[in-house]
């Protein structure tokens, strides 16, 4: 018998989509196929993501979880020779329908990348960038206020408030990643996509990001891709397991890591492959 994965005590009861059928899902995916050239990377994905939960995507490398995450804000559009079919609706809007404003979509669906990617600008300008391009405000004091708020929300304000004019590249790796989260939060999206946000960070920086995710859940719907199953267990309410481009199982996180429905999930979680 393989050892069970430790599941830490939860601070809130999980809410799986099956248990809350009455609420409208924030994101709804139907029959999604995705192709890189001729290679099919995603097969017939069907998934609902409720509002204000943290959903984690787990699975071995190359299983399509990052690709799927990137279909939710049409980030794959920038990769040449890709093709998508099926339906992704966010608040009842089909985001792949003709005439969709991708810029407006990405404003609503923020994204944090695996590798922190601050712009070679000052700390302040990094956070202000999204506000400026979206013409959120023309008043300087309001801009400064929203930058401060975003940095507060990303739990970075106290560390950088005295050096907002310094280069963002002078920050440590963990601080840079929180800066990227602040940058995404500044334009107040409704959904936050996180592609392995802590994979390049040390344990202390990782725990800061995880605490942050827990706080952000009150306001945002968060979808996080992670390689780290303990992390998925710690931060998420619902977990989805991907394998070879297929969605194998979606379940309340607690259930997923103690008594998954699928044999494949159990094999992966208990470390038999992947």
């Amino acid at each position, binding site marked *: 018998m393989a050892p069970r994965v430790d599941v830490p005590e939860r601070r809130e009861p999980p809410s799986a989509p099956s248990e809350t059928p009455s609420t409208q899902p924030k994101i709804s995916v139907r029959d999604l196929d995705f192709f890189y050239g001729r290679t099919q990377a995603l097969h017939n994905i069907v998934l609902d993501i409720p509002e204000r939960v943290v959903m984690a995507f787990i699975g071995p490398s190359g299983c399509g979880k990052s690709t799927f995450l990137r279909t939710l*804000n049409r*980030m794959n559009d*920038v990769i*040449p020779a890709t093709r998508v079919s099926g339906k992704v609706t966010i608040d009842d809007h089909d985001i792949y329908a003709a005439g969709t404003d991708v*810029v*407006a*979509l*990405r*404003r609503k669906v*923020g*994204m944090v*990348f695996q*590798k922190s*990617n*601050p*712009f*070679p*600008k*000052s700390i302040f300008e990094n956070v202000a*960038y*999204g506000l400026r*391009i*979206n013409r959120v405000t023309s008043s300087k004091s309001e801009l400064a206020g929203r930058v401060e708020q975003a940095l507060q929300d990303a739990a970075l304000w106290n560390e950088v408030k005295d050096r907002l004019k310094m*280069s*963002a*590249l002078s920050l440590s790796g963990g601080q840079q990643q929180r800066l*990227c989260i602040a*940058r*995404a939060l500044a*334009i107040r999206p409704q959904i936050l996509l996180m592609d392995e946000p802590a994979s390049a960070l040390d344990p202390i920086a990782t725990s800061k990001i995880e605490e942050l995710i827990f706080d952000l859940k009150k306001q945002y719907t968060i979808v996080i891709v992670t390689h780290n199953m303990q992390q998925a267990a710690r931060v998420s309410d619902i977990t989805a397991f991907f394998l070879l481009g297929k969605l194998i199982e979606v379940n309340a996180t607690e259930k997923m890591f103690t008594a998954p429905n699928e044999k494949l999930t159990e094999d992966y979680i208990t470390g038999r492959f992947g």
Partner: protein
Amino acid sequence: MNFVAARGDRTRRISSALMTSLTALCTLLAVGALFIILAYIALKGIGSLNFQFLVDRPRPVGEGGGIGNAIIGSLVLLAISSAFGLPIGIAVGVYLSEVGKSRLASIVRFIVDTLTGIPSIVTGVFIYAILVLPMKHFSAIAGGVALGLIMVPIVGRTTEEMLKLVPHSLREGALALGAPQWRVTLGVVLPAAASGIATGAMLAIARVSGETAPLLFTAFGSRFFPTSLNEPIASLTVQIYNYALSPYDEWHALAWAATLVLMTLILGINIVVRVLTRRKF
């Protein structure tokens, strides 16, 4: 474990030492040649260099004279060519790196590469045909455009290479914040590559400031200080050419001094651009 060199290691170490010293020797040759040229020019030129020489215009043999008008002419020509060649070159680079992903882009790239190899005198003759003949006279504008045309492919290709060095994650980061493509390019990608693009621009300016042939057909040269962009204008390179080809020893000395001034000018431009585009972040 035995760390004493085995027999086979001896030849390996000898050939390693041989190749290392060979590369060092070649570097020494290249750098040495440059320093010999610089030292020789300085030695020959410094004798005729004085304040009068820098501010006066050319005079008949025996009356001294200077290259003040040629210095100003060269700077004017560089300004015109930069105003014309740098924006177009940078735009070409942006197109090749950021916009054009199609077959057209590879055709443009091939043409730009071919353009780099065109002898500068051909560019001069071309501008003579399309600008000087219709205007019916030589002019600073024609000279500047000819030099600018030489700059376009150099700046275009270096800009493209520099933009390609900007990590893709930066573009995605900006796109994910809802930035349209043009704002990503202008606000994030170009500034991130600014110092590299400036280096490319500098190389292009240094390259054209040494050009003589295209100016013979376009700016022509002048013995007077410029008063208008619509008339022939002097330049250091053409002035050096005229002085050097003359049969007078006095003018030969002036040619050396003018060469020294030209080299100093190029060095000065390089330093100024370097300081201005120093990485701030």
